[in-house]
């Protein structure tokens, strides 16, 4: 594997201001993460709220400075790069935000918003940039004349398309999306997921996707990193992870997702309790207070990520002896007539999009 983006021992501590009484608190939002993201793959980061996904994403682009550790992009350590060189590299590394509305300046027209990254990086002449804006708008499923309108005139899904067009404007190689489809309704989410996948193929992008929706991740990702309280506890090819998780927390996540197949779900045990306070994470394995398999060693010694072969790594003392449950085949059973209707629908949609395709 040729890694395009790698981290080594990456850490970010947030220190809160000292309150009137007591001590200032430190949150280890990212607590020593080492990852290799391959060129051209879709790499996903999953985990529950507060586990450090957004912080990690921001560190990957050095939108924030790490407390410790390295971020390597094509042989350069972003963490120690001088500002000018970093600015130049930003052209290659672009970000898509969860909430397109709050990330787009409402005073700027859509055209100006998409053109901005090209201006910042002095790409093309004014005319060339305008042509590129029109091209990008078409590419993300909007129309060139939308360039003169303002973000508030668009729906959530359309604004996300604008955000994507803007991220593409500087011709990046890596696109990092922090929950890029989480705020969207299912039908709109599907449109944007398809768009991201098409763009990835057409522009040869590497995609890093952060999400908490495990179905979206399963659909999009080649490989997945599962985070718990600032650490990667398991990293594996998506299919392997879902079929046979190796970390108890990964098993717990898969058991917890509601599956949209009526009558398909076998009974399962669920993890109890809340995630622990990130300010005072438990000793030993951070998951041990909730882990159904925890033993004495788990309570005192922190497990480290170990190579399990097959491109999988896991941080659990008991990984080799446990046999954990993944998601078996949970396809919805349907009547033959219903299967026929789904086929009709898919065909009708394909015909309709073939009709409407520009060019």
């Amino acid at each position, binding site marked *: 594997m040729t890694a395009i983006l790698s981290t080594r021992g990456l850490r970010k501590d947030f220190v809160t201001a000292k309150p009137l009484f007591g001590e200032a608190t430190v949150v280890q939002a990212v607590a020593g993460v080492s990852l290799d993201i391959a060129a051209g793959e879709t790499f996903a980061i999953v985990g529950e709220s507060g586990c450090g996904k957004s912080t990690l994403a921001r560190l990957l682009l050095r939108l924030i400075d790490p407390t410790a550790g390295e971020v390597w992009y094509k042989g350069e350590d972003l963490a120690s790069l001088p500002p000018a060189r970093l600015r130049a590299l930003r052209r290659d590394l672009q970000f898509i935000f969860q909430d397109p509305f709050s990330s787009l300046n409402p005073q700027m027209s859509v055209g100006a918003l998409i053109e901005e990254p090209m201006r910042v990086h002095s790409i093309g002449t004014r005319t060339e940039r305008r042509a590129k804006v029109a091209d990008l708008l078409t590419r993300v499923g909007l129309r060139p004349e939308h360039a003169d309108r303002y973000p508030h005139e668009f729906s959530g899904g359309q604004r996300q398309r604008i955000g994507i067009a803007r991220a593409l404007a500087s011709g990046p190689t890596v696109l990092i999306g922090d929950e890029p489809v989480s705020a969207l309704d299912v039908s*709109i989410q*599907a449109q944007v997921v398809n768009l991201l996948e098409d763009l990835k193929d057409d522009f040869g992008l590497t995609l890093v996707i952060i999400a908490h929706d495990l179905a979206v991740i*399963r659909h999009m990702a080649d490989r997945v990193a599962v985070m718990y309280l600032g650490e990667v506890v398991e990293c594996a090819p998506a299919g392997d992870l879902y079929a046979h998780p190796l970390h108890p927390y990964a098993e717990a996540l898969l058991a917890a997702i509601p599956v949209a*197949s009526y009558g398909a779900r076998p009974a399962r045990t669920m993890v109890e309790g809340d*995630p622990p306070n990130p300010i005072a994470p438990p000793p030993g394995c951070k998951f041990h207070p909730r882990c159904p398999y925890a033993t004495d060693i788990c309570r005192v010694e922190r497990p480290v990520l170990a190579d399990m072969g097959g491109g999988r790594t896991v941080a659990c003392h008991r990984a080799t002896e446990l046999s954990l449950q993944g998601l078996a085949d949970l396809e919805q059973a349907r*009547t033959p007539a219903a299967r026929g209707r*789904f086929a009709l629908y898919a*065909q009708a949609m394909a*015909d309709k999009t073939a009709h409407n395709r520009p060019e």
Partner: protein
Amino acid sequence: MTATALLELEGLTIALKGVDQPIVDNVGFTLARGETLCIVGESGCGKSLTSLALMGLLQTPPLTVTRGMARFAGEDLLAMPAARLRQIRGGRMAMIFQEPMTSLNPGLRIGEQIAESVRRHKGVGQAEARARALEMLRRVRIPAPEKRLDEYPHQLSGGMRQRAMIAMALANDPELLIADEPTTALDVTIQAQILKLMKSLQQETGAAMVLITHDLGVVAEMADKVAVMYGGRIIETGTAEQVFTDPQHPYTIGLMSSMPSLGARSGRLVTVPGTVPQPTAMPPGCRFSTRCPFATGACATVPPLTDLGAGHRVACAHAPLTATEAPAMRSTGT
């Protein structure tokens, strides 16, 4: 079924000031004791307005109930005086919202709030109400309930606040529970715990539940019956088994096709094109017609919710859809 119905909603229609077409149009369903109905649909389809109307909590103006009847244990919720509705609300009919702080008072200890509601609806004394509050916190499995009783909402985690709200909602043994996206803001492991809790409490008490969600996964886990809404109307309804194994409405099919599967990867997602029209720009006839791949001239008339058998009802001019019944397809030449 009808003989034992606890709630019968009929023809609920809600108007929004300045909008010609009703924003919720002719919505109805029946619910028996112990049953769970899931109302599912995308943002803005009228799920919350429907539940708010049942509880008499619509913001009026700009909203008005222009038509409809909601028979709850013999009385019409939509027609009764506000004072009577207040008696029922929080007592025989309770609700849970997405955001626990819409029902919890930040300035009151958890125990006091639950006890207050018990005193008001059950007319019991201080000590008994507090004992009930403790019992409820224990039943929703909040750890160290004696201690939590005297804590304020902000001292609890999000999942625990949601449990506290459920404890309060269930403290007076409601016959009907209305839950509007009760787990949407929670992490999946906490969501799974709360859904399991709601299910087991419901089995213990025999309460009926209207559960509003946009997540078909939650529907598959929880529902006995399903109502799929689009643009303010129910477009398909039936048992969970009917709707999941034999969906009929093109929107239901489109919604299910849009969901990425958890199984092996299967190429591009089949989507629903376009977006939901604004309330001011709803097409006449079937409101899905602007996005439907099967739409024809027949769809310009409002399709009635028609029983296709065994209570599985669908509002589509072309239902049940077959290859010969799909005129738009024939014209594009398959």
